């Protein structure tokens, strides 16, 4: 009887998880199935994957996208964590404006954004691929900003900051030693969102005439569609493994509440 009640009470959760699983796993499963096809010869093998990693430019562009995304994550954390902490602690009126501003990348077309960047950025920025992390940062702002904002709202931030400062911590140490460890989960979510968005960004990169991993995959797809799908599968797995590693390497949270 108890078991039946338990099963019935868990039913909605099971249905939701199953539906979500289907929604995510079915397309991925299909793509994977497609990526291991042998084309016209029929049958299945990993030859498309082998082809992809034997391509000379695979690692070049994978590494390039990886470090550009990493720089974007650093820029995001360095700008957003102190900014949001300051906004929350001072209860600044500017918060409303900055909240609104952070949503603008969702409504401004990427083309307009690219043209704006070309017109506004100085040459020494435009001439280097390092312009991308700053632009990726703006594109991921609506998501990164909210992920951090939710984490900071969930703790008594003002009291903790003041306790740290009155104990002798300057602003930098208050943020690095107190705020970031306490909001670790929100920071990790921000890292994950920013990294994933930057890694997959295509339109802006193409419009600004830069080559990264996604633009290279598109180029490769013209020559070998199955190989391109195999590469896409790998690009899904790489960030997944990376984020799983970040979560596992992060210090245990079990003793906190």
């Amino acid at each position, binding site marked *: 009887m108890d078991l039946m009640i338990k099963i019935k009470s868990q039913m909605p959760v099971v249905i939701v998880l199953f539906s979500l699983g289907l929604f995510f796993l079915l397309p991925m499963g299909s793509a994977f199935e497609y990526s291991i096809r042998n084309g016209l010869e029929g049958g299945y093998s990993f030859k498309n994957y082998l082809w992809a990693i034997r391509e000379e430019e695979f690692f070049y562009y994978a590494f390039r996208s990886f470090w550009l995304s990493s720089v974007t994550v650093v820029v995001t954390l360095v700008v957003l964590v102190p900014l949001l902490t300051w906004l929350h602690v001072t209860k600044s009126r500017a918060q409303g404006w900055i909240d609104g501003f952070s949503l603008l990348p969702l409504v401004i077309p990427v083309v307009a954004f690219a043209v704006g960047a070309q017109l506004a950025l100085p040459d020494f920025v435009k001439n280097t691929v390092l312009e991308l992390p700053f632009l990726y940062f703006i594109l991921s702002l609506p998501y990164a900003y909210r992920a951090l904002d939710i984490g900071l709202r969930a703790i008594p931030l003002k009291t903790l900051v003041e306790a740290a400062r009155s104990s002798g911590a300057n602003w930098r140490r208050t943020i690095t030693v*107190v705020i970031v460890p306490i909001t670790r989960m929100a920071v990790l979510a921000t890292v994950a969102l920013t990294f994933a968005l930057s890694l997959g960004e295509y339109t802006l990169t193409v419009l600004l005439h830069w080559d990264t991993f996604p633009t290279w995959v598109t180029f490769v797809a013209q020559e070998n569609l199955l190989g391109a799908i195999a590469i896409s599968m790998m690009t899904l797995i790489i960030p997944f493994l990376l984020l799983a590693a970040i979560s596992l390497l992060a210090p245990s949270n079990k003793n906190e*509440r």
Partner: protein
Amino acid sequence: MSQNNLKVKSLSKRFGNVVALNNFSLEVTKGELVTLLGPSGCGKTTALRIVAGLERQDSGTVFLDSRDLTLVPAHQRNMGMVFQAYSLFPNLTVAENVAFGLQMRKVDRVARLKRAHELLDLVGLDSQSTRFPHQLSGGQQQRVALARALAFEPEILLLDEPLSALDAQVRSNLREEIRRLQLSLGTTTLFVTHDQEEAMSISDRVGVMKEGKLEQIDTPDELYNHPKSAFVANFVGLMNQVSGTKTGNNVSVFGKTLKVKNEVVSDGRVMVFIRPEFIELESSEIDADAKVISRLFLGSVSQVICQMHDGTIIHSLLASRVSGEFAPGICVKIRVNEEKVLVSNG
């Protein structure tokens, strides 16, 4: 050499249209525990936060041993602070929380943990040193916060209503502990509370604040027995405040004439203040002055509330063992200890 450890001079602070502090000044001598007492919004917390460096004043100066702290940021002021809300870092153990201030001062790990254990021992929580804040009760968390604030030997200890979130018994124990620690360590302490019992029981001096200003600062005894204004008289302890007429040394009040010693107050309309413990009651059907309307049992004493014939309400504080006869409806005669009556103009 001046004995003033902390000197606050003419502080003013506004929040929009609200004046939080209005030319507020205060001096605290070394080793003293001074409490700022007042109703919500009187500016006591603002004053404390300005001293801590967590708020910037519009004008005025804070000196610590003659050193101007106006431009010194909070983390360089060497002041320990305990907050009203629980403020322990949830990701650190109890010992790591206490050692935090020393870590910020780059004291090596062994030395700072040794000091943390000493402080935890002082507040009776050394056995909890490996626990996390959420595993402690509210009272224990505030004791850890107190240990954290004292661990780096601050020049001033600032307490911002640290007991207000605790239940009555824990509160009473912890305030005794704060006083014990403060006396044994000799730390100059500025304490903020709206609870007059708390303020009166542990302070060397109490400053009563009203509308951003100090109304009176004195020892608890002096404040209670010789309040300098109607506000202080009413805020500190229970007080009967009635209007009367003064002629020479006599004051006519609720149909009685009392002999008072107060040459400063001019004749005419006056306010008369009488503490409830200086009003005695006697059951009397003939020539009764008042009728008992209720009796509140407060433990060893009871408060008897009477209504005079003219409608004035008078509170009397009697030992509970004798107050039993004054049940509601009983007619009583009132006797006032005239030596303890306070009179003021207006």
